[in-house]
């Protein structure tokens, strides 16, 4: 019979972390799972060399060692049904049941196609951080960071800390927009302090506004890039290009559970009430999946969800802080809007679907993801359209569709569990 927990929390980033902390404090028996080997999520990913940020480490230690917590690392949800989840880790598949479910599945990067984006050496900006923190060799490497928003500064700081030669940071937004953003920062003292710290860490690294990387070039791996900016087009020789155009909520699991969504720009996010409850009873969502809002939103919303799910009282002050944190997200969105020029970078030969190597040319004439997929295999590969489907939606071509289990490619034995799920559930109840 499947194990049952009062509360199951999916995701060990800031949202899942405070959700676990709050639920444990209320006396709940909690299962906490994440696809990664260590807690922290993306923003507090454990660095092999430097560990966790201090603030994260303290809470991670107290939550992880709690006697009523079961920590399930390297575990992904393959399928979901009312009150139960089918999980797969590196060894086995198992089914667990929950009284309440808290989702903190975070976000992934918005990765947009341009000529040369498939070359080894081109990654996301958050990807550069993730790789570096897990020991990816960067010492002496020539790194260019490009895209939009404050994440570029964080990526540059991580790269520099790991010994990279950061040649420059290229921000697509205009100088006026970035300055207007900076003038509002005093409303969020924590953010202002973080920005000041990053600026001091990045002293001496060129930062250029209104600049867009238009292509990556190289024979078998990245050798150089072209940047279109206020001084015309320049070519830069480099070993690593890290592109960060923003983040996209991971809503696949919540969608599979039937949680109502709304669109933020071209991408779905999960609709929640003031207690972080979704449209499905006993399912809560917190953090980036409710709309890109950053670490502080996740931290506060996780706590609200943890309290609400375990029968605790959510006080008004906590909700006021959460609304204030959410306003910062709006400020970010308004000032770092993507230049439509970026949506035209891919040419007819640029591969859109990197799993099945489908070029943009092959997608002409289709107006929905399903017919394009049936005819061209676009979105049929291992990433299940997470990269190309999201890019196509952002480019305004067509929305992602066709979500169904398994949520991630699964082993045959796990799929066997999936097929027999209705029988198992029947005998359990």
């Amino acid at each position: 019979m499947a194990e049952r927990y009062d509360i199951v929390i999916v995701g060990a980033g800031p949202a899942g972390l405070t959700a676990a902390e709050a639920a444990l404090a209320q006396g709940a028996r909690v299962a906490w799972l994440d696809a990664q080997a260590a807690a922290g999520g993306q923003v507090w990913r454990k660095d092999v060399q430097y560990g966790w940020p201090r603030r994260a480490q303290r809470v991670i230690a107290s939550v992880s060692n709690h006697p009523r917590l079961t920590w399930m690392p390297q575990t992904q949800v393959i399928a979901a049904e009312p009150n139960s989840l089918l999980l797969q880790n590196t060894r086995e598949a198992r089914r667990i049941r929950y009284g309440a479910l808290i989702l903190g599945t975070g976000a992934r990067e918005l990765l947009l196609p341009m000529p040369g984006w498939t070359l080894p050496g081109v990654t996301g900006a958050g990807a550069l951080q993730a790789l570096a923190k897990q020991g990816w060799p960067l010492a002496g490497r020539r790194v260019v960071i490009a895209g939009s928003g404050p994440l570029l500064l964080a990526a540059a700081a991580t790269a520099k800390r790991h010994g990279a030669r950061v040649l420059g940071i290229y921000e697509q937004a205009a100088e006026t927009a970035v300055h207007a953003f900076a003038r509002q920062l005093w409303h969020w003292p924590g953010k202002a302090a973080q920005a000041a710290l990053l600026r001091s860490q990045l002293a001496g690294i060129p930062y250029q506004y209104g600049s867009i990387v238009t292509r990556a070039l190289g024979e078998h791996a990245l050798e150089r890039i072209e940047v279109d900016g206020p001084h015309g087009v320049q070519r830069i020789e480099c070993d690593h290009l890290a592109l960060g155009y923003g983040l996209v909520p991971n809503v696949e699991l919540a969608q599979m559970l039937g949680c109502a969504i709304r669109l933020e720009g071209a991408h779905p996010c999960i609709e929640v009430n003031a207690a972080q409850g979704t449209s499905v009873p006993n399912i809560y969502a917190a953090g980036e999946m409710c709309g890109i809002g950053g670490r502080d939103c996740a931290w506060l919303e996780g706590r609200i969800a943890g309290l609400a799910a375990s029968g605790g009282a959510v006080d008004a002050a906590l909700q006021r802080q959460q609304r204030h944190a959410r306003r910062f997200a709006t400020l970010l969105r308004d000032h770092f809007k993507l230049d439509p020029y970026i949506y035209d970078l891919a040419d007819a030969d640029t591969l859109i679907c990197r799993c099945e190597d489908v070029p943009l040319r092959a997608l002409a004439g289709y107006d929905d993801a399903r017919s394009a997929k049936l005819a061209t295999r676009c979105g049929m590969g291992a990433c299940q359209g997470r990269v190309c489907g999201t890019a196509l939606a952002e480019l305004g071509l067509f929305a992602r569709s066709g979500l169904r289990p398994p949520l991630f490619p699964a082993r045959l034995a796990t799929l066997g569990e999936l097929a027999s799920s209705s029988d198992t559930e029947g005998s359990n109840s």
Partner: protein
Amino acid sequence: MTQVRIHIDGQALDVPAGISVAAAIAQAQRPFRRSVSGQARAPFCGMGVCFECRVQIDGVAQQRACMLPVREGMQVVTDG
């Protein structure tokens, strides 16, 4: 830092414990995978979303190298 010994495409490599298989492959300057049309690919998203870093680990194909820490005695086979 503690070292572990792994094999990448048959070649022994001592790497710091706790690093990802992806980082170990990069340190060994080995390729990752070839796409369906034969292009060289390497880690792209770094967080288990894009599946560009897939390699064979201990006989199991299609493993995401960015998601797995190295383990003593691990056998990694790339598409190179």
